[in-house]
């Protein structure tokens, strides 16, 4: 009985906080936009009984999904988001891995402090941290002033309102999500394994590629998911730091919802986004499962 309850808890959690909201979003995505409160049609009228439910279902259709294919804006935005998320994830990994590696190889008494430093930015509001990048990256901002003072450049660089600023914002914001799982992984890594690899003829570098990297694979994958998934739907960072030409699905979603007041299309955009995100995760898990079974 107690076991049953323990198994049920995560499922109930999932049902209450994911499945039910998702079903509602799917339902809205199958509706039509209407000038009403709430602004879509049909509404489920339970007072009409069985007939009401039947009419309700007969009114639902996939029109909004077909609509998404009629305008190249949507797939371009999805693609552009995927690209931005992928590049940001790669950059975050490139920067985060050495940091995690450095932390894991630091003296144990230093590690707690270093960990603290990584987590510290979370104590400030995310929004304020992104806003402060405006002050750093703008034409008359800290970075340009500094570079001009150094004499590296003689014209201020245009960074703010470009895709570069978006990358900076995403990498900065999500870096801890990359560092922490990799660090957790590397910290457990037995130093003797590296010595063993060197003993067996590896240089420092090849020991890193042949032993450290494969053994931190699960941390790398976890970190990449933690960065890639929120980055793909990111709205705040491209809005604040990106230029008007930065096309991201989060912004499109916002416009559909707020400017067009088209909740059904907005929901369709969200459903497609979820599918785009969930499919690779499921494929990956399947693959992991297979590997695990194969090695049994």
């Amino acid at each position: 009985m107690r076991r049953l309850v323990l198994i049920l808890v995560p499922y109930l959690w999932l049902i209450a906080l994911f499945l039910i909201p998702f079903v509602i979003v799917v339902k809205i995505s199958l509706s039509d936009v209407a000038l009403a409160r709430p602004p879509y049609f049909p509404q489920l009228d339970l007072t009409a009984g069985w007939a009401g439910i039947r009419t309700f279902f007969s009114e639902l259709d996939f029109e909004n999904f077909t609509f998404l294919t009629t305008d190249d804006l949507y797939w371009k935005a999805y693609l552009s988001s995927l690209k931005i998320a992928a590049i940001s994830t790669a950059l975050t990994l490139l920067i985060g891995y050495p940091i995690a590696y450095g932390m894991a190889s630091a003296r144990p008494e230093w590690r707690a402090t270093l960990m603290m430093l990584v987590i510290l930015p979370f104590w400030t509001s995310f929004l304020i941290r992104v806003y402060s990048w405006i002050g750093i990256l703008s034409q008359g901002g800290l970075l340009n002033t500094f570079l001009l003072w150094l004499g590296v450049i003689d014209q201020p660089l245009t960074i703010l309102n470009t895709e570069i600023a978006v990358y900076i914002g995403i990498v900065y914001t999500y870096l801890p999500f990359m560092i922490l799982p990799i660090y957790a992984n590397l910290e457990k890594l037995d130093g003797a394994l590296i010595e063993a690899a060197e003993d067996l003829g590896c240089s420092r570098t090849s020991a890193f590629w042949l032993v450290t990297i494969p053994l931190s694979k699960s941390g790398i994958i976890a970190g990449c998911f933690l960065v890639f998934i929120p980055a793909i739907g990111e709205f705040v960072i491209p809005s604040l730091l990106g230029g008007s030409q930065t096309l991201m699905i989060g912004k499109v979603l916002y416009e559909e919802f707020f400017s067009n007041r088209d909740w059904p299309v907005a929901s369709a955009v969200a459903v497609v986004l979820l599918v785009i995100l969930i499919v690779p995760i499921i494929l990956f898990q399947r693959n992991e499962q297979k590997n695990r079974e194969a090695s049994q």
Partner: protein
Amino acid sequence: MKTPLLSLTATLALTAAAVQAEEVHVYNWSDYIDESLLSKFEEETGIDLVYDVFDSNELLETKMLAGGSGYDVVVPTGTFLQRQIMAGAFQKLDKSKLPNLDNMWDVIEKRTDAYDPGGEYSINYMWGTTGIGVNMPAVEDALGADAPVDSLSLIFDPANMEKLASCGVHFLDAPTEMIPAALAYAGLDPDRKDEEALAKAEEVLMAVRPYIQKFHSSEYINALANGDICVAFGWSGDILQARDRAAEAENGVEIAYNAPKEGALMWFDMMAIPVDAPNPEAAHTFLNFIMDPENMAAASNYVYYANGNKASQEFLSEDVIGDPAIYPSEETLEKLYTVTPFGPKEQRTLTRLWTKVKSGT
């Protein structure tokens, strides 16, 4: 009237908590009232005033359409108000509870009738125009002393814009403001929403798109005042705010606001009571309090926008009532136009067009 960008900041998730009889929830634009009026209201009426702010019509509209916002008084802009009335978001005003309605200005009422015929659902709070803010010395440097600072050609003629690009031009990130202006420049009715007209507006905007540094609806206040940009197409009150900041800073920046001579968009922020307001009684009390001439004048003196209250004008300070940028002359007033809201289909075309203008996609 400000826009979407970061409405999140103002998303003070208000729980539609149990509202006691003696509480009224007001949801207004940020920085849009003299705050001493709030305590004055509480003192006079004994009603607790809970005052929240937002910074985008879209955010307000989403709350109104979703329902259950918990607010008693909200302040949408005319075009948004009209659509929300059609969606059934507001309740009719009980005019017997609003004796101060007599103070309102018929000139403005005539115009707001376009959105809310007969003022059944709303009263005007503030109104203003959308026009051109310039940093005079910089623009004269770029275009010479005879720069057309009071004409839409300043911002829509590629020849002018090419020269202004290097000193910086910002446009509002609000298609409902920019499209009518482009239509006015093209000599078309600014309220046209047909495909032919929108195509024309797109042509005008795409021609100057490369010279625009940014589409944003609030950054231009600071950017203008600091001299980071030299031209902004924006809301009157905001540009006047930039003017005063620059004057205070004495940084060589001289801002001037002009409503374009080809015609300028006139907008109205309206106070209305949501259909599901927890305390409509107190909401009426608040509206009546606001329509008191002295209170209304205090608000205008504070925010530098004109109001729709005739009786308040004798209490306005000279730099408000006397500034043609705030209270335009009869002649200019005649050239101001109003627009009606876009329907759902048209709205989609509009948003899509705007995305194309901004992103090139």
